[in-house]
């Protein structure tokens, strides 16, 4: 069965560039791009929601079906 990928939304207006989502993603999906978090490798995402859960700034959403 083909794996469905989530949509990862990063709200730059809220992101404070703390690196938490990037560092604690177990699959290295995210990276810092300039000041903000950004998606580097969506294919690897396992939808664990860790990034959304840990972001102190309500700035990252993992949208699954």
């Amino acid at each position: 069965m083909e794996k469905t990928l989530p949509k990862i939304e990063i709200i730059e207006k809220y992101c404070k560039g703390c690196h938490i989502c990037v560092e604690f993603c177990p699959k290295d999906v995210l990276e810092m791009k300039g000041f903000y978090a950004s998606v580097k490798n969506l294919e690897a995402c396992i939808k664990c929601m860790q990034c959304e859960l840990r972001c102190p700034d309500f700035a990252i959403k993992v949208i699954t079906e």
Partner: protein
Amino acid sequence: MAFDYDKWIRPGKLPHIWCPGCGHGIVMKGLIRAMDSLNLKKEETAVVSGIGCASRLPGYIDCCTLHTAHGRAAAFATGVKMAKPEMNVILVGGDGDGTAIGGNHFIHACRRNINMTYIIMNNYIYGMTGGQFSPCTPTGHKASTTPYGNPDPGFDIAKLAIGAGATFVARGTAFHANQIDKLIAEAIQHKGFSVVEILDDCPTTYGRRNKFKSVIEMMNRLKEVAVPVKAAEKMTAEQLQGKVLTGVLYKDDTKPEYTAEYAKVIERAKAAK
């Protein structure tokens, strides 16, 4: 599915004022998930705070809120609860607000066992005012007022709460984000005074001074020191050296609750004469 925090946030209030990597935002999200999981009604829920970075929290939450005087959250919250015992009353604040200037209010709320929940964000420092040491700053650590190391031993908030008479005491950390909502939800459901201490981080005024290179290092430290109570049962005193227990640390369902006892006083007074 992404959690819908927006339904609990006052429109237009984000981004919040907290610094990059400050754990207060993680705690606020945990509180929102807890309130949501219990289906609390906004008009029946009051979030009350004193003063400090942590105490800014109620300003963001879309329910009944009170941002009061430094250290006085427990006093104002007690007033709300006595006037409207049917309300869910949740206190939030920092270690400075709760254990220094507000220490007396804190222990007496515990002693009364009044049915409210107190979430205390312990970042070991007065963040808002530039990093003065608090009663929770560990011995030897640096603050703006203890540049050569703090000579005082710090409070253990959970032990203080248990000793003072709180009937539900739990501890979590800003690293263990997934656990925060569960601890808070259980605390809110408890009938009596419940205390949830969240070990938190203040990278701006505490982290830098105490040689944490980054927010990530502070988060990893929380991860390393935390030991769930169940796991601790199987560990030796030596293994537990320098560790902090997390989870539900204490629960007592037998002690009378204050608003119920007070209602009886009113009945007795009415029957007299």
